[in-house]
């Protein structure tokens, strides 16, 4: 398959302030894209299963025991940035998407990766 079919260009990295997130649509699916101070990018699902709202991109990013996480802005559960798994309940996962940076542009893979802990 060609690059175009597998990957979607989303936005320049500079559209995302360090340590914040934005929401985006990949094939109609809502995702949350986060950027760290070191320009690392992570993509996980935007739908918060605990509140039912599409708000994960608006959570505060940080680390717990060395794992990068985002806290849901509604009821504050934490989700791992690398795979979307919930720290408080490992049965729950937001799913994650592969991501790369090309020429300062965030490019997200179309295929969601779901992995239960």
């Amino acid at each position, binding site marked *: 398959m060609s690059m175009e079919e597998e990957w979607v260009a*989303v*936005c320049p990295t500079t*559209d*995302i*302030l*360090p*340590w*914040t997130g*934005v*929401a*985006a*649509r990949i094939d109609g699916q*809502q995702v949350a*894209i986060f950027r*760290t*101070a070191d320009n690392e990018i992570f993509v996980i699902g935007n739908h918060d299963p605990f*509140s*039912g*709202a*599409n*708000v994960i991109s*608006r*959570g*505060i*990013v*940080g*680390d*717990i*025991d*060395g794992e*990068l*996480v985002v*806290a849901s*802005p*509604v009821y*504050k559960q*934490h989700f791992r940035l690398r795979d979307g798994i919930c720290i408080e309940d490992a049965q729950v996962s937001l799913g994650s998407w592969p991501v790369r940076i090309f020429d300062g542009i965030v490019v997200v893979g179309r295929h969601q990766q779901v992995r239960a802990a």
Partner: protein
Amino acid sequence: MSGRTDKLIVIGNGMVGQKFLESLCEKNRDADIAVLCEESRPAYDRVQLSSYFSGSSADDLSLVEGDFFDEKGINLKKNCTAIGIDRKSKTVQTSDGDELGYDKLVIATGSFPFVPPIPGNDKAHCHVYRTIEDLEAIKASASESSSGVVIGGGLLGLEAAKALKDLGLETHVVEFAPQLMAVQLDERGGALLRKKIESLGVHVHTGKATQEIADGEQTRYQLKFSDGGTLNVDMLVFSAGIRPQDALARDCGLEVGERGGVVVDDYCRTSDPDIYAIGEVALWNGRIYGLVAPGYEMARGLAAHLAGADTPCFQGADMSTKLKLLGVEVGSIGDAHARTEGAHTCLFEDSTAGIYKKLVISADSQKLIGAVLIGDTSDYGNLLQIALNDIKLPENPASLIMPDMGDAPGIGVDSLPDRATICSCNNVSKGDLCTAIDAGAVTLADLKAQTAASSSCGGCAALVKQVLDAELSARGITVKNHLCEHFSYSRQELYHLVRVHEIKTFDALLAQFGSGCGCDICKPAVASILASCWNDYVLSPSLAGLQDTNDYFLGNLQKDGTYSVVPRVPGGEITPQGLITIGDIAKRYDLYTKITGGQRIDLFGARVDQLPGIWQELVDAGFESGHAYGKAMRTVKSCVGSTWCRYGVQDSVGMAIFLEQRYRGLRAPHKIKLAVSGCTRECAEAQGKDIGVIATEKGWNLYVCGNGGMRPRHAELFAVDLDNDTLVRYIDRILMFYIRTADRLQRTSVWRENLEGGLEYLQDVVVNDSLSIGSELEKQMQLIVDNYACEWKATLADEESLKRFRAFVNDPKPDEQLVYVREREQRRPATEDEKLAMQRTDTMEV
């Protein structure tokens, strides 16, 4: 248990019977269970029965969750009465004509109201007070009556009297004993209660024996008393005590007490080892327990026993009670009548305030064995713990009940024995907490997860925390108030570091004093400290990632992910044109509109991408951010004051507006609310606020550290008759001192309670400037006042900041999953069920 499935029958599905079933199912015990339920509905909350009159439905009262019976495979037979037990064939006969076999039988038939054998007691409008049907009948009678009487002045009788009063009847209570609540209260307590109840318009007749209920002339009935007196009423409720429903047991030859009740041992076993009795029907150690908690204990114990536990099910229970009767607080503990040999008492009475408190003390003056509290039961919990745990009384026991003598000797948690119940909702003792702490619990959250303490009503949280702190320090573990894993400092320490080292960013603070990347605890806390110190624009990029979503989008996040919009309305004063503007904007954006408890208007349901448009219009019309989203100064509530009110002595609205404009935008460890009242009638409720101001003839009285919310606290009088300048100077200093020294998310009330030296210390710092920081505090406040800028105005002027208000970085279309329905002519988020229903037809986009 053995491999085969036992047949278990439970007779009665009242409060205790149901608790038993729940506990048994929790134990996962395999059994074939049948439940005979005489009433037309399964178990409901009899304790809350009276709320049926104030709007609760039978469904609200139900104690059965969802499809409990189906789910657990329990055979529930409604409208089915057990009419006989054959112990030989081990069968129960039912009113349906059935015969059911059992291996084990549980009798949970409760009790029935005792109706004294008075001629005429069977007339149409004579009632009892026990079931939902009884209440329906009372309601029907009341609708065709104008007066009513309750026969019996005990606990339940007074509750019934309240119901009659609420139904609009002229209400009487007739009691045979010379006083009300004779079981729980002493004579003086009874007399005070009577006075209070009479002042509510209920007529009390004590020392009266009713001889006959005859037909009346003007009224439906006439009661004739043994002393020749009469009372004219239209309807009656009997509340003359309860009797155990023990007929079944009696008929099949089980041992029953002289005055009724099925005799049981510590395992709730009757004289037949395959038959058990629990709840109000059971007679344990010569006693019937007419309260629900002992019944629940029996239910839990028996379930554990049947599941194989070998510990006794029941070993007696405490009958102390605390309640609010007709709005009067009443508490009774242990030996209220001081009947114990050699007991002596200690009294406090304030008849103007309607307060009466009595301690009953053991002969050796060491222990508290009883207490009566009327009008003020705030000491109840403390006294009960002392009595139940045999804690040695202080030198001067009177200090336990004297009003506000400064330092009432609280019971140190150290002195509580291990068996002391700390969380009554979940039956967690101090010992249980200690075990969890031994097993490694170090935070409140750990304890909650491991013991369930404080996971229901939460009322015990403070006590649980005290036990935790005391136990940790007893184990030599220093109690850390570190903010989180990234900073080994408390909020107060970080505040000082930020100021002393003039730190302006989170990264700098983290690099110098922290570790890791930060988290959702320390980031907003540090953002707030930075804002309190330097008052920089909250949306500046260096602060962006620190903010909670409310501060990031300058609105309050709602359950569906939209935000609310609250423009500032200083002092609650708003022009008609202002109202029209807000209304106009709300209408165009279709925002749900509501008047808040803070004298302003909240517009709900704005999407992130709509916020700038809405605020542009508000700012253009002269409105500013109301900071409803921030840990910041919220509102200054005011009453109309001397400009219009005939009693007002100062311009409270003017002062409120001045204060609100002075402190708008001020960030703090938690939100801050103020209020100004124009006279002592206090229509602005200033004594419930962090800062309360009440006008006097000579100036202003200042109150501090009040709180509504989860744990209301009355504000304390800080200073009197202040002029405008002094008032503002004091408030500047108090607020700044709070901001400097409080913990994360600590309201002024809690801060004040933890302030060593208390109010006096605060007065010393602020009024006498004992720390010589007065002018510094004022200067710092002035800096913040001078640097104020409306956050929304600044945001709208900044292209970069506006970028963040997009729904999606790569798509201008808003979130299609927001679904609304209309209710009372406004929009609200659809419930999950409504969403599903809509998906099946046509998704409605808004």
